């Protein structure tokens, strides 16, 4: 395992007791504010000394309280991207970026500045000072600075939380490239389901200082039992799709294991892989294959599980091909349609329900 964490720490009125292991890729620590996400990251970074715990990254033990081992932050070789950026105001962007290089292990000399500058698109900013940067630019520089100290693990504490929607859309592609093009594993704190859907390889759901659920993003997001812990209104599965054709009327055709998906134009070459988030609220279920319907996407499948909520709602998980789709309906509809595990049905999705932010680069 790339990252292995066991932590116990007591604050006044709050105890943290978590254990999880994360494979390579991007692991999202998901939870509401106060669930202990930042505490976990700070303990991994060495900014918080836990009462008890053991943390290993890429086989290196950073903290092992039973053995009395605790490395200070500057010897952990982790990159930490803070929520507020925390760029050094008295240094230029270039000096900020290269700050960690002199401390990187001998011979590595830090990461490749030119490559990181291109990856994050910050070439034009190098001689500026942080005070003259926009929020999105600061975020990218902060990511670059952490990356350039050649870390064994990149920690990101809600790097998008302080940004408006437009700036988030600006940064998300860079984070995807970071996940897909570098070998550095990432531990990413977030309370946004949208970010989980776009970025996560693995999700660790934290609730009141405990791990409520851990698993691959596509599984966790499509699990009706977990959805309330995330955010019911934001519930929705993520499925893999590959662009096959661009239609002249502005649609893109994607191939999924469930069938063809027509989505608003995605600017990419055919063959490109995507992960598409399908909001549970946007999915209609039908027992019979509907006729004379305006919706373009009709995916056949079978009901996997039905999760009845406390209120009028129900979450139904449908297996379509090898993908899982989540639909949010009323209990009344679920009963009327006789939806039980094994029932064949069709999941219907309007093309225009899928927004630009719902389509991310490949799983």
């Amino acid at each position: 395992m790339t990252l292995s964490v066991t932590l116990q720490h007591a604050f006044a009125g709050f105890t943290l007791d978590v254990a999880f292991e994360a494979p390579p890729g991007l692991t999202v620590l998901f939870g509401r504010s106060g669930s202990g996400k930042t505490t976990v990251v700070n303990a991994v970074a060495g900014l918080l000394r836990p009462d008890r715990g053991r943390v290993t990254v890429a086989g290196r033990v950073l903290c092992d309280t039973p053995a009395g081992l605790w490395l200070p932050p500057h010897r952990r070789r982790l990159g930490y991207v803070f929520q507020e950026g925390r760029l050094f105001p008295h240094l230029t962007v270039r000096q900020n970026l290269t700050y960690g290089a002199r401390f990187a292990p001998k011979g590595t000399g830090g990461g490749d500045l030119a490559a990181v500058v291109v990856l994050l698109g910050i070439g034009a900013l190098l001689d500026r000072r942080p005070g003259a940067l926009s929020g999105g630019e600061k975020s990218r520089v902060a990511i670059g600075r952490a990356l350039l100290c050649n870390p064994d693990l990149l920690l990101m504490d809600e790097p998008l939380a302080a940004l408006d929607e437009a700036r988030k859309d600006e940064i998300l592609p860079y984070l995807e490239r970071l996940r897909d093009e570098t070998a550095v594993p990432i531990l990413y704190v977030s309370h946004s389901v949208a970010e989980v859907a776009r970025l996560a390889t693995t999700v660790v759901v934290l609730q009141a200082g405990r791990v409520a659920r851990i698993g691959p993003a596509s599984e966790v997001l499509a699990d009706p039992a977990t959805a309330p812990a995330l955010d019911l209104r934001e519930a929705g599965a993520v499925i893999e799709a590959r662009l096959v054709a661009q239609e002249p009327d502005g649609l893109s055709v994607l191939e999924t294991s469930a069938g063809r998906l027509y989505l608003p134009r995605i600017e990419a070459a055919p063959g490109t892989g995507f992960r598409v988030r399908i909001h549970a609220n946007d999915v209609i279920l039908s027992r019979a294959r509907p006729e004379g319907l305006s919706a373009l996407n009709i995916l056949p499948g079978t009901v996997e599980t039905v999760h009845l909520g406390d209120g009028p709602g129900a979450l139904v998980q449908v297996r379509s091909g090898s993908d899982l789709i989540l639909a949010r309906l009323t209990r009344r509809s679920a009963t009327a349609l006789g939806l039980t595990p094994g029932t064949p049905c069709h999941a219907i999705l309007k093309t225009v329900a899928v927004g630009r932010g719902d389509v991310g680069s490949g799983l």
Partner: protein
Amino acid sequence: MQGLLTAEEWQALALSLKVGLVATAVSLPFAVAVALLLARKAFPGKHLLNGLVHLPLVLPPVVTGYLLLIAFGRHGMVGGFLERTFGLVFIFRWTGAALAAGVMGFPLMVRAIRLAAEAVDPKLEQAAATLGAGRLWVFLTVTLPLMLPGIVAGAILGFARGLSEFGATITFVSNIPGQTQTLPLAIYSFLQAPGGDAAAVRLVVISIVIAMAALVASEIVGNRVARRVAGT
């Protein structure tokens, strides 16, 4: 220029600048250390240290001078030790004038630097640590540069206070031309002597010019450093 002042007046001016600069340079590192201690650390006796540092600000200067005389005189506890160990003598020497100037300027330096130290965001120091910087590096590359505006302001304040020092100096090291007779003491002497008014006025003008120059310099340097640190 030579004709502008008499040799005695030149001597007072040169001595004043030397005393002021040495006092500032020597006390600055201590002021930074004490300011950091007061700004960052909680320890028993913190109020006592704070009070001790600020005492010269509120005590009559004569009292400070007398205390210096007791402590740093040849038979004083500290003075005797310093003379035996380092051959350093304060009494009736320019070094004593510098010590008096330093002690009187110290509280002003500490106040300015402490404010700057409190304004440094510890989160930036944490960020530096996660990037691999040990404590000394964090201090040298983040804490100290961010405190620089306060340090510059404190140094100039301390220097100006040192130049204007009178009461503690005359009590501690007396009024000896060429050794301890700084500008204020020289002005005082000229005013006491018959016919010394013209010389006193010349030195008064010079004092005003130096004070103004120090204030303007502090404003310019302070602004420049503050802009640098603010990151715009």
